[in-house]
């Protein structure tokens, strides 16, 4: 299962990279979301998968899943949510202000001397 998950995470990274390399602001922002999914899945996988019951005491289990990566991922999820929200609003603002969603038009290198 871990191998499968690592590969899935890799695919998510690949898609994310491709999206972030695109020139459309929407794709770029969606790319960052996909990236965070990849990151979280990979982090979970690195802690080992399905090693026991959910980490709730009282499940009458002899083994529990590693709770630490889960806690880290939870933190990471919340942080990515904040970043995504900001990025979204920025995408929206900059489209309204700059009139384009094309990053190649936003090179801004004029008068570069």
């Amino acid at each position, binding site marked *: 299962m871990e191998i499968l998950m690592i590969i899935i995470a890799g695919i998510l990274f690949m898609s994310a990279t491709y999206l972030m390399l695109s020139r459309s602001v929407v794709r770029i922002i969606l790319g960052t979301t996909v*990236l965070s999914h990849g990151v979280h899945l990979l*982090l979970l996988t690195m*802690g080992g998968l399905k090693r026991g019951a959910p980490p709730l005491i009282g499940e009458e289990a002899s083994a529990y899943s590693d709770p630490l990566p889960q806690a880290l991922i939870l933190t990471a999820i919340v*942080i990515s949510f904040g970043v995504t929200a900001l990025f979204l609003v920025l995408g929206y603002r900059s489209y309204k202000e700059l009139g384009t969603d094309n990053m190649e038009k936003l090179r801004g290198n004029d008068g570069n001397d």
Partner: protein
Amino acid sequence: MAMINFLILPILVPLITAVILIFLNKSVIAQRWVSGLSAFVTVILSALLVNKVKNDGIQTLNLSNWDAPFGITLVSDMLSALLVLTTSIVAFACIIYSFKGIGEAREKYHFYAALQFLIVGVNGAFTTGDIFNLFVFFEVMLMSSYALILLGGTKIQLRESIKYILVNVISSGLFVIAVGYLYSVVGTLNMAHIAARISEISGISQPGVISIIGIIFLIVFGLKGAIFPLYFWLPGSYYAPPAPVMAIFGALLTKVGVYSIIRTYSLFFYEDGGYVQQVIMILAILTIIAGIIGALAYSDVKKIIIYNIIVAVGVILFGVSTMNESALTGSIFYLIHDMIIKAALFLLVGLMATITGTNNLKQMGGLIKNYPGFSWTFFLAALALSGIPPLSGFVGKVLIVQGGFSSEYFIGAAIVLASSLFVLISIMKIFINGVWGEPKTYANEKTVPYKQLLIAPVILVILSICYGVGADFIYPYMSQAAESLINTNLYIDAVLKE
């Protein structure tokens, strides 16, 4: 009664201040007072912390009272305490400059709160002893930097922030997976514990995966620290916000990346047979060259200083990569010098742009005629940046070169030495063409609160001079800082209390 929580205060005070500032959004005056006072208090507290570390050795704090490695541990060794102190000083200067230099509109929209949050992030990153907590503090710092880079919402800010945020999101993603990889291999997050575990196996046959993780961390922190070839995002992004923000960014943000490289490299990846070391050294040298090329390329005052950030990062990392005691001491000397002097230079260049209404040297000239105070402050700052004795950059550079030579890294050390010349050429270009030259009249000249804006950079430059001239006083601190990097057992034992 020993105050066991002392080392958290430089994080906590700005944090509380930031929260208070959110409530004070209606009154700009109150915000100025609160943030200025708080920044001053933070400076004092950090200075006391440095003193404490000097007297009592490495300070640790097991948060929530859980023994290391199970909770999060904050660790103040000399390096971290010194960086916290420097951060607080730089922040204080930038806040003073902002009173007159950022504009009321930005002040009303949580400028000071974001700035305080940024200090929280930076001081936290310097203090934490937990690799995941480092990520969290990075995020605090980054999110505040997003807030600051965006604040004002001008076209160039919007445009450049997209790039800036995107790059940092990628680097944060990599950071988390690097932590994941590391956790998979060593099963712990406390940095001292990781170091202890890695050194346990290093004698036997250390698996190469440690090097690879080292490389990924290098990339993550290198993105923040703007090493070659990961620095491309920096010049554009740092160019966008107003001077005090630029100063904070230029002085602090890249240095957090550099610090993290120093920390992780000295703790985790030093004993990997030199692979990470070689990579860092080569990249450091290339970084110096890339920075120089950039610094020479433009007639734009801001860009010249911005590219000089990259040069300095290369110089510091070169010293670190030699892992030679004097070079390492030199790097720490240089790191702190660079934080102070970069902040001063950005503020000065900002002042220059405010007076002249342009960033382009070709449209400036003769500032020395009406602004001698500014001109000489700039001159001194420029010499300090180039490492001219007895100003602040000198001792660090000499130690780096000397360490480089004695470890027989001749090419690198020679490039570090030569970089001084190019740095000098690039910065004196501003002096020769902007400060000297045919005096001109500028449209906004009359309305600029010149004297008030000059206070902060003057404080920083005086500090930089004292730092250089008083190097003998400072040296014991630097060598203590270098010691805990070379003898990592000091750090590990302090945390794990073995």
